[in-house]
């Protein structure tokens, strides 16, 4: 239990500091809500239309690719921590793991998923 004390203190500290800022800001800051103030800021003009409804599929594609490869990187961190203990077999497994994912990346790249047009 004792080795987790560091993380607990860290979370407690961040929680109190951010909480303090939010509370102080909402308590001390004067509030004068108005109709215009709640509208979207579009360079000082009345916005034509709020972007509800369908959004171009290209955004979705890019977002999914990002999540995919971001999660892949997350697996590297724990591996890097215990890397010494795993010996050569750990390295081979990780290379295979990365190889499979890189194949997917090259397939996407080759298909032009990263290009915008």
């Amino acid at each position, binding site marked *: 239990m004792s080795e987790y004390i560091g993380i607990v203190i860290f979370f407690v500290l961040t929680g109190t500091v951010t909480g303090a800022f939010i509370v102080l800001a909402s308590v001390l800051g004067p509030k004068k809500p108005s109709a215009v103030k709640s509208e979207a800021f*579009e*360079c*000082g*003009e009345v*916005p*034509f*239309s709020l*972007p509800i*409804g*369908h*959004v*171009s*599929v*290209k*955004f979705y594609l890019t977002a999914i690719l990002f999540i995919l490869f971001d999660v892949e990187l997350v697996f590297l961190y724990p591996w890097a921590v215990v890397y010494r203990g795993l010996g050569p077999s750990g390295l081979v497994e990780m290379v295979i793991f990365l190889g499979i994912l890189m194949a997917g990346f090259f397939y996407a790249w080759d298909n032009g998923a990263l290009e*915008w*047009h």
Partner: protein
Amino acid sequence: MDLAQTPESPPREPETREMLLNVGPAHPAMHGIIRIVTKLDGEQVVDTEVEIGYLHRGFEKMAETVDYNGVIPYTDRLNYVSPLINNMGYCMAVEKLLGISVPERCHYIRVIASEISRITDHLTCVGASAMELGAFSVFLYMIKAREYLWELVEMVTGARLTVSYCRVGGVKADLPGGFDERCRKALQETRKVLAESDALLTHNRIFVDRMSGTGKISSEDAISYGITGPFLRATGVDYDVRKDCPYAVYDRLQFDVPVGTRGDNYDRYLVRMEEMEQSIRIVEQALRDIPPGPFLAHETGRPIPAAEMVDEGKIGNITAIVGARAVTDPTLEGAAKSQHPNIEAGEKRVFLPAKEDTYGNIEGLMQQFKLVMYGHGIRPPKGEVYFPVEGANGELGFYIVSDGTSSPYRVRVRPPCFAIMSALPKLLIGDMMADVTPTFGSVNMIGGELDR
């Protein structure tokens, strides 16, 4: 519901609506108040409509209410980043209307002032568009360089930005003492800053990727839109008013005109950086060839302070002031009679006399009265004239119609960045939303000159 059995209607095309977006007057990433209504398909700009006029201050209407020298403060708020070029353009147009020409040294002073002003314009333009692409440090360096040049301009004209230094028929005052070596030192510093910025930007992966290939325009389109200046030269056409219709002493100075090839943002950036180098070269040549400054004319009569002479004259004590020569406070503007032969066109009905004459003798006083009183002033003959000058964004033309009275009848400014802005839809369509910022940065739109 059985998923395998799809409804008979064909699979619906994923219907995406274009989004109308205001890249509006107060846009976080653009220095300049115009409103671009863009129709976006995702990130792609499909169609744009540009709306200007947010800084229309009625220059041409105000120019009709003041006299000829009164228009000069309005002209240096046209392209307020290079004010001296507007001053010179307007004054040369009126001088062409009057048919007078200024002495040699005054031409050199005007060339030096215009080129220093052109460097400050390019510094501000490249610095601000680099800042909008994230290169904040280049902006700080370039504004630091601009401060050196503004100190120089302040030393000559007295103001940093709204200088009103030129007069019809000459300039307000001669170059101050010690201007040469301070000017060389300032240009040396500017060269250092240009080298630094060049190292920071020219081969910077991000900067090159965002600038090259965006905002392209072909030279035929550019000519058809009437675009001139660095914008046109970046497309490969080497039209420069200083070379093709030389004025002042530009034909005696050696400088070359940088020309790009592809006509995109990166070429415009390179053309502007090279033009700054050429302007420094011009200023150094002009400093070398400028004719000598004020000479001490041989003055007769014992000097007495002008105020004392006036008082004596008022009480009729003529014997005290006969054969005397009025001397005025040297800090009085227009004093130093020795400067005048160099900076004025010698036409009595156009240029104010030296203060020693104004307070010293009746001819000077009458000349001052005839020029300063309301309704008198400079009265050029009836006529119309067009005089083009190479502004920082292109050909800056002044078309003046005079009806013989002391205030101009019509002053029309041909704004160089007006033509570039009319081509903006052609530059933006097809690019991505993120390319609007570098394209608009390299257009170098100046509100005062665009909307007048």
